[in-house]
């Protein structure tokens, strides 16, 4: 588990940890790159939407890696996300923004907010790993 301040300069640290964990269980580079990008985007969304740019808060990521799945549970104590945030923009509607959720959904098989969490958000991301 890692806890980092809610500042963009720490996103590289989150990417690095994610990549190293992926490498340690033998994931292929393209898969690692997708997971790294997706977790980066999820944390950037927290900074942007849940914390509204406040860099003095915390983001906590708990990784659970088994032979069956790569799982990350990302928590914040900010504003509750709205379901619209999980939509993203139409990819044919070319404009800045709205891509992050597409990267998250592409990388992970399960993208689910814990609705029982009273304060803040808990996002569970699961990538099922296929047996060779």
């Amino acid at each position: 588990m890692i806890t980092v301040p809610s500042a963009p300069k720490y996103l590289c640290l989150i990417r690095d940890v994610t990549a190293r964990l992926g490498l340690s269980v033998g994931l292929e580079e393209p898969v690692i790159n997708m997971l790294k990008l997706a977790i980066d985007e999820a944390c950037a969304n927290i900074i942007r939407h849940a914390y509204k740019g406040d860099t003095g808060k915390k983001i906590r990521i708990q990784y659970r890696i088994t032979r069956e799945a790569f799982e990350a549970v990302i928590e914040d104590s900010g504003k509750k996300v709205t379901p619209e945030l999980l939509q993203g923009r139409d990819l044919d509607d070319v404009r800045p923004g709205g891509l992050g959720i597409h990267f998250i959904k592409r990388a992970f098989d399960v993208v689910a907010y814990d609705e029982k969490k009273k304060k803040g958000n808990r996002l569970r991301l699961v990538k099922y790993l296929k047996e060779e």
Partner: protein
Amino acid sequence: MEIEIKDYKGVKVITVSGDIDMYSSPALREELIGHINTKISVMLVDFNRVSYIDSSGIATFVEALKHMKTYGGRLRLFGLPGGVKEIFGFSKLDKVFEICGDIEDAIGT
């Protein structure tokens, strides 16, 4: 991320190195918009040393492209590493941007 500006055969080339993410993209945006505000006619961006790009980096280039289109300017990207090119493709932006193989292709397009 580092940004280097040079002129190549009379065309402005922006060379970006390292990770383009939520932390670094504001500096990149400032650089690009600075040139666009001078109504630069052609701007090339060298991606050869870009190791990573996220949605905020992509958004920066989409914004730059939209600005340049308002006055007929051309923004061309070249030297995209495989992983970066794949992200542009997934985002359906490989058909929106002029993406070239190398600097000579970008100059000659």
